[in-house]
């Protein structure tokens, strides 16, 4: 009924200040909702992109019995031909192979368990940007097989620096111990502390000559053109190489998947707090408005306005306030996100701790249209639900009592 719309609209402007406060609360809630969602999204997306681009890659392939403890006998059969055919798939941006062995790294000052990453430096760089992680010295070079890259933190732990010797050793298939003295060509650092503490990089071909059993690799890492092709490509590869174990980054690093869900939970908690504040604001404001209008509501009921219409009128009032506040809220939210998406939010002052766990210090917020709609929907739903309470209270007005007021 148009008249109810008219009354509701005019009622809003009887106390403009109060109405504007509510409109602003809705605007602010949405603004913050969109922005915080985008912020967390950005943080998580960056964390994942970083992990994919520098650690796990999109897809990895192993011997089906290959386990995280890198049992040395489970190598890939004919890895060279697999590499070749993978390189021909257009969705794949680059491919590299590795021999990953659990071993020991020792210096004059001590020793520690490490994961020896036997890599092909050139293709490794194309997949995980190996040489970008370098902080001092030089990257592994084709000419110099007996070189090793270790992290700054490991160097500190073993009291080593560039140019010094590091002895690596590992147990081979037959129980024999292989060891080699390598020269530290450079130090690297990622923003993943635990990763840095355990991983060292050597030439895969050095390991081949050391073991003298021909070229062996136990890991293939694949970087895709686009993350969107992930599941499809993985499915194709699984079909093409049924004898191998093909895993996506989600399977390789379940903790990353966890990061996503924790991020989503954070967003939900934030939204929950915002919505709760809004709900209480709306209930409080509308209850006050209704209390002031007790007599009027009594008269409306007396002269023949039924409860359905009364309820509708009050819910309409709240809805209009929300309708006024929502567009600017979305607009402010999206423009704030757009602004910081270009500029980035520099958190380096606060993230000393976080950056150790693989979070970037500059966050570029990002939000999908779907998420915006989700935030909007939650807010609108919460507002409507909170308008029900004052409306329901008004329905219990007794006209005879109300009119005396």
């Amino acid at each position, binding site marked *: 009924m148009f*008249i109810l719309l008219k*009354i509701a609209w005019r009622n809003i402007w009887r106390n403009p200040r109060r109405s504007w406060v509510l409109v602003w609360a809705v605007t602010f809630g949405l603004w913050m909702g969109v922005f915080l969602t985008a912020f967390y999204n950005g943080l998580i997306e960056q964390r994942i992109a970083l992990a994919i681009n520098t650690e796990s890659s999109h897809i990895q392939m192993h011997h089906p019995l290959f386990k995280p403890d890198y049992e040395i006998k489970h190598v890939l059969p004919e890895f060279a031909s697999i590499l070749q055919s993978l390189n021909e798939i257009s969705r794949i941006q680059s491919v590299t192979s590795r021999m990953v062995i659990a071993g020991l790294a020792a210096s004059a000052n001590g020793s520690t368990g490490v994961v020896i990453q036997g890599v092909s430096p050139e293709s490794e760089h194309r997949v995980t940007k190996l040489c970008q992680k370098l902080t001092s010295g030089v990257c592994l070079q084709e000419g110099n097989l007996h070189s090793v890259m270790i992290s700054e933190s490991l160097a500190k732990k073993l009291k080593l620096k560039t140019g010094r010797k590091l002895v690596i050793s590992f147990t081979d298939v037959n129980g024999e111990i292989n060891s080699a003295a390598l020269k530290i060509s450079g130090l690297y650092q990622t923003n993943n502390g635990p990763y840095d503490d355990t991983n060292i990089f050597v030439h895969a071909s050095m390991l081949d000559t050391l073991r003298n059993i021909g070229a062996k690799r136990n890991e293939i890492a694949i970087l895709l053109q686009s993350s969107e092709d992930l599941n499809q490509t993985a499915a194709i590869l699984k079909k093409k190489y049924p004898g191998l174990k093909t895993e996506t980054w989600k399977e390789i690093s379940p903790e990353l998947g966890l990061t996503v869900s924790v991020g989503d939970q954070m967003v939900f908690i934030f939204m929950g707090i915002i919505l709760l504040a809004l709900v209480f604001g709306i209930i409080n404001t509308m209850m006050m408005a209704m209390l002031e209008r007790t007599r*009027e509501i009594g008269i409306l009921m007396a*002269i023949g306005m*039924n*409860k359905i*219409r009364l309820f509708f009128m009050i819910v309409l009032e709240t809805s209009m306030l929300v309708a006024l506040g929502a567009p600017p809220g979305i607009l402010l939210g999206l423009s704030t996100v757009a602004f910081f998406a270009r500029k980035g939010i520099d958190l380096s002052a606060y993230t000393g701790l976080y950056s150790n766990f693989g979070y970037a210090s500059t966050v570029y917020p990002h939000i999908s249209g779907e998420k915006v709609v989700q935030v909007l929907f939650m807010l609108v739903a919460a507002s409507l639900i909170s308008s029900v309470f004052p409306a329901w209270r008004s329905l219990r007005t*007794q006209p005879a009592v109300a*009119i005396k007021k």
Partner: protein
Amino acid sequence: MEDIVIDVHQMSRTYNPDKVPVVALNNVHLHIERGEFTVVKGPSGSGKTTLLNLIGGLDTPTSGEVLIHGVNLTSLKGNKLVDFRLHNIGFVFQAYNLIPVLTAYENIEFILLLQGVPQEIRRKRVLELLEQVQLTDKADARPEEMSGGQQQRVAVARALAPKPQFILADEPTANLDTRSADNLLDIMEKLNRDEKMTFLFSTHDPRVMQRARRVITLEDGQIVSDTSREDTTHDSKARIT
């Protein structure tokens, strides 16, 4: 058969029956016929408002019943009762009757909108009513832009809009100066005469009582007298019950 619009039957109303009971109405018996112009008088606290509220279906009697044109009000519940009021009973309260955010025109139209009267008829009716209460020039004024007397006249027009069985007015002149009160009563009287609209109103103002053709006196929740003046211009009969 006489055309009885309001039939109050052995009605009592006790407030706070559990705590400190206040017997506001005690065994009241009353008939009002079509076309009456009747006043309920009595000192403050005698039960006038209580009586009018019960007749208007705004309150429920503790015992006894109210029949409006044969319909027992206590048998109607919730929205059914609201709808009954919408179509059968016009209300004028002491003051601040109108919806503040609507103009005089809209306040009257509101009732017709609730009834679902089509636009053309609605418009004609509202303009006619505004003319009847001599407020055509105030059609677009909001209540706050009108005097108390003008507001009461709009309230009368609104009460009249759905062509109800009768109009209840609880001390409609209590907040008005003498001239405005006279003017309002003139209009009500004219509507009673020309439209045969039944009026039942309360007052404790002696000048207002003089205008009524039947005066019911309440004291301590009981009808202590019920007198009718002979009125040759009107065929309504009042009777003592």
